[in-house]
């Protein structure tokens, strides 16, 4: 099924659902929660049209469990939720990281903590997306800032997930999820898809977690003649539980390595005029929109301001941030929280030149607030 490249007015949530279809997603399990429900509604209609399957589970824990199960069966799988549901999913996100099962989890962020201020926008789950589940684990987190970007990053989320056998989190926010924009979607056939590496060896030689040169395990879907074991316990190359010290940590290091060695593929960002800027604004998600506006306003006033929009939040784009900040005397980091990704920026470039702009009351940061910070920067310099 292909969509003709015509202009459409659509929501971020709808674009996410269409991006999933375009990426080859054929299974969705979810539980209703504002502001993510539209993704489920669209997919309940769209998936069976393309021969895929949709199920509304009894809760978010069941939803993520079901998508991991479906992925083990070979289907590209998705769930979508918001803060409270995302909290419930954490244990099984760790399971997917541990067992290296591809799956995509969308979190359309709303203001927390707890039930918070439903359902106002927020970027309060940035750290949770990184460290929400227990134990050391790698994760990929992407964050779109427009409806079209939501479509594109959803397809990338599936691409990374399948290619690196890892859960990928798409961190949207209420504004991006509910906002309608005019978009022209590409022909779905042209969307780049990754398929799992699989194996070429016969079943009797097969070791699902063999240490491959790529560091990505050659997992074969259940039901295709390769009978093996999957577990959330630390396991050996056959997938069987292990307590051997020469297997536990080396394995953990491998699952980090499979992500870390591919940063040039995984780190998505957009930068503009950072080379000779005095001030650089670093932003992501909905805040990138206000930031872009503020940068333009500052430039009109003759300021040399650069802009770095991060699309991949985790792994954190250390070198890219470092380079973008190299020439600037001041870095402005606006976020819809009390300071989360800024902690990473400060870790990389030091606290001295970083200026935070935070808001966590359910309202967006206005361009004027960011502009004020840019001016303050120049003034204090």
């Amino acid at each position: 099924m292909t969509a003709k490249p015509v202009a459409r007015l659509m929501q971020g949530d709808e674009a996410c659902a269409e991006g999933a279809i375009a990426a080859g997603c054929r299974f969705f399990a979810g539980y209703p929660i504002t502001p993510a429900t539209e993704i489920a509604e669209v997919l309940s209609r769209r998936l069976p049209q393309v021969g895929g399957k949709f199920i509304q589970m009894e809760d978010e824990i069941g939803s993520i469990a079901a998508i991991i199960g479906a992925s083990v069966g070979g289907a590209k799988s998705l769930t979508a939720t918001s803060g409270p549901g995302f909290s419930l999913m954490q244990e099984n996100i760790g399971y997917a990281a541990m067992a290296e099962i591809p799956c995509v989890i969308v979190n359309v962020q709303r203001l927390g903590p707890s039930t918070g201020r439903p359902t106002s926008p927020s970027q309060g789950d940035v750290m949770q997306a990184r460290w929400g589940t227990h134990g050391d684990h790698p994760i990929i987190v992407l964050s779109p800032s427009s409806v079209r970007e939501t479509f594109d990053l959803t397809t990338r989320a599936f691409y990374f997930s399948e290619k690196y056998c890892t859960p990928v989190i798409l961190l949207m926010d209420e504004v991006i999820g509910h906002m309608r924009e005019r978009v022209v979607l590409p022909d779905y056939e042209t969307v780049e898809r990754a398929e799992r590496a699989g194996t070429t060896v016969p079943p009797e030689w097969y070791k699902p977690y063999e240490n491959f040169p790529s560091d990505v395990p050659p997992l074969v879907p259940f039901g295709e003649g390769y009978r093996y074991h999957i577990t959330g316990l630390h396991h050996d190359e056959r997938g069987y539980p292990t307590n051997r010290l020469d297997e536990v940590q080396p394995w953990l290091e491998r699952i980090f390595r499979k992500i870390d060695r591919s940063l040039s593929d995984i780190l998505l960002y957009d930068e503009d005029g950072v080379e000779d800027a005095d001030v650089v604004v670093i932003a992501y998600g909905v805040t990138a929109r206000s930031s872009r506006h503020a940068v333009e306003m500052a430039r009109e006033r003759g300021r040399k301001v650069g802009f770095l929009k991060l699309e991949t939040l985790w792994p954190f784009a250390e070198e890219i941030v470092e380079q973008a900040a190299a020439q600037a005397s001041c870095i402005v980091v606006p976020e819809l929280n009390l300071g989360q990704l800024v902690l990473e920026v400060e870790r990389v470039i030091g606290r001295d030149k970083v200026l935070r702009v935070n808001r966590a009351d359910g309202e967006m940061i206005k361009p004027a607030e960011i502009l004020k910070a840019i001016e303050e920067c120049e003034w204090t310099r």
Partner: protein
Amino acid sequence: MDKITKTPRESRIHERYLRHHKKFPNVWCAGCGIGIVLGAIIRAVDSLQLDKDNIAMISGIGCTGRMPVYVDFNTMHTTHGRALAFATGLKMVRPEMKVIVVMGDGDALAIGGNHFIHAARRNIGLTAIVVNNSTYGMTGGQYSPTTPTGVLAATAPYGHIEQPFHIAELAAAARAAFAARSTVYHVKELEKYIAHAIVKDGFSVVEAMSYCHTTLGRLNHWGTAPDMMRRLKEQSITCKQAEKMSEEEKQAKIIRGVFADRDIPEYTRLYDQVIERAQKEAAQ
């Protein structure tokens, strides 16, 4: 002796179905009934002549959760309480597979209780085998949702004050297609129920009573593993025998038998109709 060594490997059931050269000895205590349930499962599978490639065994956490690693199927050891939800996803994308879910009573009915009743309500074609040892064995004998009222548990040092779930009856009430209970003493009966459950088109539940002598048995001075067997033998009655008993008399008994066996449409088959309808409408 000669006769045994000359038997071809494939003719011996444990050679055919267990990862015998990889994963044994197992984690279970000597005298535990979980191995008996595992034996009943592989004999049931063998009697049905099923293709191993087409069988998945999925578990959660706990003593019973360790079962899949020993069998030569597509096996998955998931998180506590969630085995049925993982299995639901797998069954939906691989409806032709026989998906057997093995759980303990705490796994299936406490932390996983919500998934249990909803899998039954949905009537998705999974075979749920619940080993009911009436306690949390792996963590040392805390009370579970099936611990009988009045007994001692590691977290009920003054006696347990809650009433237990009856798993097979609960499954029947939640609209499972098949629900039965037997014990690890009544192995042939257990095997028969498991075979029926695997063949049944819909959500089927077999509850296998198997007391834990290491924890609950020790705390309550119920004796050794053979004493647990004697207890299952003497304490259990058939559904027919139960009919003649008062509610009070039945309280202390384990009622064995079939509690539901109904023909209702299976979920993945219904979903195939959804796909058909969606594609027809889209084509119009």
